[in-house]
């Protein structure tokens, strides 16, 4: 295992020190591993709290700041944070207007946020609402399983709902907006290589030189199926096909994200985006906005994921609103 770390046990705590040193727009509660927007709680604003396992940077800590999250709870690598962290963050961002929990749909994340909401109800007067993001078409959605995973749409949702929160909209509206966004977005990912959890010390899985994992998640969990290594052109088709099969995108202009898994060089991501753009162009649906880069990663995994969101004028307006975070910044 080759990593720029000290002790594998200290990776998350020490990365938080670095984020605190680097980013003027946040402050860090190291005891509780919470990254706060520096000026939280913001008056006349619903607090947005997210969080999850670490190893997906810039998600979530890199999306704390004006126009996105008010706080992010950092779990251990690939492990949901704990209810006490989330409760503390909830208290720390509440300005009397309630708090929205943005949760990626993983059993651990859902249960820990659930307990946090129960604690908030029992111990505080804070109104908490929860939106669960589940956009990964690689996973069959079913009442009898854990359901689809939350992946790329999380990034777009945090941006869009963050912009709406900045406008002073009430919690119920933000929660409804978040659900609309979740329903309008789908993602699909693939991996060329595995990642290595620092404390595990070796790759989570092995892929031969001529293989790739299709439908990979963001935790090194195996994907839908192992298939022969394909060209960028074919991979673009393989990512796009299940997304388009799952949802009708024809009604709206798109927000598209071509996301790197952490170890993929930008030149490959741009090349992939070119392939994706060609396919979308054939469909005739206009792409209004796009992101190409590492936005929701899986440590040093090589690979990419594609996220498509069916937008409208209002979502585009929210997209263009100012944002100032480590991971996304414009308009300010």
């Amino acid at each position: 295992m080759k990593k720029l770390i000290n002790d594998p046990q200290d990776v998350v705590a020490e990365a938080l020190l670095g984020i605190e040193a680097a980013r003027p727009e946040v402050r860090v509660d190291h005891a509780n591993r919470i990254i706060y927007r520096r000026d939280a709680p913001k008056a006349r604003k619903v607090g947005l709290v997210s969080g999850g396992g670490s190893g997906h940077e810039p998600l979530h800590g890199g999306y704390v700041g004006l126009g996105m999250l008010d706080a992010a709870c950092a779990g251990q690598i690939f492990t949901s944070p704990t209810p006490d962290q989330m409760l503390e963050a909830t208290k720390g961002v509440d300005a009397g207007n309630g708090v929205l929990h943005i949760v990626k749909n993983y059993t651990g994340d859902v249960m820990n946020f659930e307990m946090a909401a129960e604690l908030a109800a029992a111990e505080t007067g804070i109104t908490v609402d929860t939106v669960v993001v589940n956009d990964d078409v690689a996973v069959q959605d079913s009442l009898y399983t854990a359901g689809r995973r939350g992946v790329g749409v999380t990034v777009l949702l945090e941006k869009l709902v963050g912009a709406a929160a900045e406008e002073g909209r009430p919690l119920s509206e933000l929660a409804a907006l978040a659900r609309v966004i979740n329903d309008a977005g789908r993602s699909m990912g693939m991996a060329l290589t595995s990642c290595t959890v620092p404390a595990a010390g070796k790759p989570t899985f092995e892929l031969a030189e001529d293989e790739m994992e299709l439908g990979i998640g963001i935790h090194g969990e195996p994907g839908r199926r192992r298939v022969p290594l394909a060209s960028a052109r074919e991979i673009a088709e393989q990512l796009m096909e299940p997304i388009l099969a799952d949802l009708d995108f024809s009604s709206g202009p798109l927000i598209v994200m071509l996301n790197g898994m952490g170890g993929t060089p930008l030149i490959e991501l741009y090349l992939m985006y070119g392939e994706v753009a060609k396919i979308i162009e054939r469909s005739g649906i206009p792409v209004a906005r796009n992101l190409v880069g590492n936005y929701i990663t899986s440590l040093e995994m090589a690979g990419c994921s594609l996220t498509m969101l069916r937008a409208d004028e209002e979502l585009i307006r929210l997209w263009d609103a100012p944002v100032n975070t480590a991971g996304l910044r414009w308009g300010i």
Partner: protein
Amino acid sequence: MPSAVITIDQLTGWLRRFHQLVIKNQAELTELDSAIGDADHGINMARGMAAVIDKLDGEQPARVNDLFKTVAMTLVMSVGGASGPLYGTFFLRFAGAVGSVTELDTAALATGLHAGRAGVVERGKAGLGDKTMIDALSPALEAMEAVIKTGGDLAAAVTAARDAAADGRDATVPMVARKGRASYLGERSAGHMDPGAASMTLLFDALAAELAG
């Protein structure tokens, strides 16, 4: 003649033995989680039980419910992931069911485990055969209750539970996961042992070992 009750010291001993077993099997638990999950179950359980033992080294609750509430809250606050809330809820409900006592007889132990299982099911919504820790916990509890029904003693009940947990754990191998992270694999999850069922079996191994002395 073997004792008919578990003292609070033995319950603490149970937890210490569980900690030791988790450490001993940490790499294997993580290995199991690599195959059908995200390669952290051993790490999670080791971190959580280390925190529990740390806590118990500082304060030694005198009552079973206080002991298990401490264990529960420490697990919830230190593990995270799926196993944190599940093991946490297990001990929290256990504590609530047995109340402010200083020892447990066989029936009380079964009552506690029963409540614990109900908590896990409520929190995680998994049933038998979904390839989770429930597949070790449920058979263990039922084996214990069967022994009690036929008038067996504490040691026999716990031994039966331990063996049933191990069988239940082994039975997860061919299952297709329907809950937790392994469910994302669908059919590909078959052929691998569930890591949570493996750690749950260690919990019963530790209990049997503690009672054996």
